[in-house]
């Protein structure tokens, strides 16, 4: 582990009961969802992690608890450090608190979480779908959401496929 990261990780472990692990030369800290806002605040204010690079999620379906891991990547411009935080979330009614109060750019990333994974974000100012159409069913990046295929239309199945195509006045 990078020497400069050590005190930061230790503080997170002490204050938030976090659990650090290291793989491929990167440090990941697992934090509970109750503590993520406080941890983000601490990283920004005390350790100069001013840049929130990204928020994303990983779906471990068919695991139930935790089904999702929310991944936060923080960067410190002044110290040139990078730290990843992971928040395990249960599969039933997954909810995380919003980070928009600490990092402004969490706004779209959290909307994307809702859109793609169906993870609710408590306290988010504008939780609408971001990339998918407003009337879309389901959350595409979940592992139980099928990729979907379109059968090619040939002469032998022309009629059959034609029937399934949307028609009407647009």
């Amino acid at each position, binding site marked *: 582990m990078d020497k400069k990261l050590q005190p930061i990780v230790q503080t997170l472990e002490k204050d938030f009961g976090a659990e650090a692990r290291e793989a491929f030369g990167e440090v990941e800290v697992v934090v509970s969802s109750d503590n993520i806002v406080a941890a983000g605040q601490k990283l920004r204010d005390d350790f100069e992690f001013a840049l929130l690079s990204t928020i994303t999620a990983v779906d471990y379906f068919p695991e139930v608890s935790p089904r999702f891991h929310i991944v936060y990547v923080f960067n410190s411009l002044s110290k040139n450090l990078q730290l990843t935080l992971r928040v395990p979330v249960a599969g039933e009614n997954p909810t995380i608190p919003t980070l928009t109060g600490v990092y402004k750019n969490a706004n779209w990333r959290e909307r994307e979480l809702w859109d793609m994974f169906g993870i609710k974000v408590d306290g988010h*100012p504008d939780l609408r779908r971001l990339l998918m159409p407003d009337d879309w069913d389901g959350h595409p990046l979940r592992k139980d959401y099928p990729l979907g295929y379109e059968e090619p239309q040939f002469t032998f199945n022309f009629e059959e496929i034609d029937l399934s195509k949307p028609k009407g006045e647009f």
Partner: protein
Amino acid sequence: MTTPYALPEVTLDEIKHLVSQRALDGETVLLNMGPQHPSTHGVLRLLLELDGETIITCVPDIGFLHTGIEKNMESKTYLKAEVMTDRLDYLNTVGNNLAYCLALEKMLDLDVPPRAQAIRVILAELQRIASHLVWLGTSALDVAAMSVFLYGFREREIILDILELVSGQRMMTTYIRPGGLWRDVPVEFDDAVRNVLNTFPTRIDEYEALLTKNPLFLDRTLGIGKMTAEEAIQWGCTGATLRGSGPDWDLRKKRPYSGYEQYDFEVPTQTEGDVYARYLVRISEMRESLKIIEQALNKLPLGPVNSNNRKIVPPPRSEIGTSMEALIHHFKLWTDGFDVPKGSVYAAVESPRGELGVFLESDGGPKPYRVHWRTPSYNNLEALPDMTKGLLIADLVAIIGSVDIVLGDVDR
């Protein structure tokens, strides 16, 4: 006749919290700009609340170019999924490949030979120049400077020809592969790149002669779309959008990859944080890129361009005819793919637009379990409402140009 799909009806109730009370009272006008608008640089839709020509609020609506690349990559082997990475930011295809391969090489602990690293750097920098030329042309076109667009695209073609020379494709190259390159560069490569090195400095001077001190251009760009360094960082801006506001944050310098630490180059910054500052930063970046290319080309090492780990890198064609083992490796690689150890990494490169990061998670199998792209345009675009508040529509057009968004990069 009824339609099988109910078209979504967006009522004022749903967007009430996004606009001011004056819009609800009917004092200000809500105007839809895009998604088919020539100056939104792709399919970006903006909902504008206007008082006369002044922007009160600007609500970006993205997703029109969402192609589900992250989901699609999960269903392909690592090698096949790489083809999709080109389609994200279609002006920085080499950089996308590079980010993906760096993430994979980190997980597989692959060594990349120095020659491959140097060629990667040369191509990434050529691509940066090509991308900046598109930005220069289109953003100048937005503020009514037509000729720069024509010159910019003329020069971009020279670079795309080099990409075609090495990979057979102008844009979607997939030339950088895990462990090295697809193949070595042809003999004409050196001359073609030298040609760029010889001609481009004067060409960049020409663009500058057309714009840098042009009073019409200055009127449209000076003091427009201002952002302080703190605001830019808060919005997650990177690249020239951030460097125009002061911080010299460049991953090539701060966290060197592919041997960038060997090259001597500056990270241009400006402090004003307006459209003009970003213009100056990108123009200087093109000159710095030329410096990097020249150094890399002058000391281009000889040797192999691929790691010799046959479990990941396909064997050369010549071996397949004579070695049974090579044939088996080839077959296994293109049918089953290779397994990647369990775990996750985040690898980032400096794309022409900023920090392009890949979050890659593996479950130990031959297909990526999860790929997430941290794309720079996404974050730079999110700052747009803040930059445009209180300005005119004409300024909005200049600002969209200056943050250099690529909608393929935003929507993925």
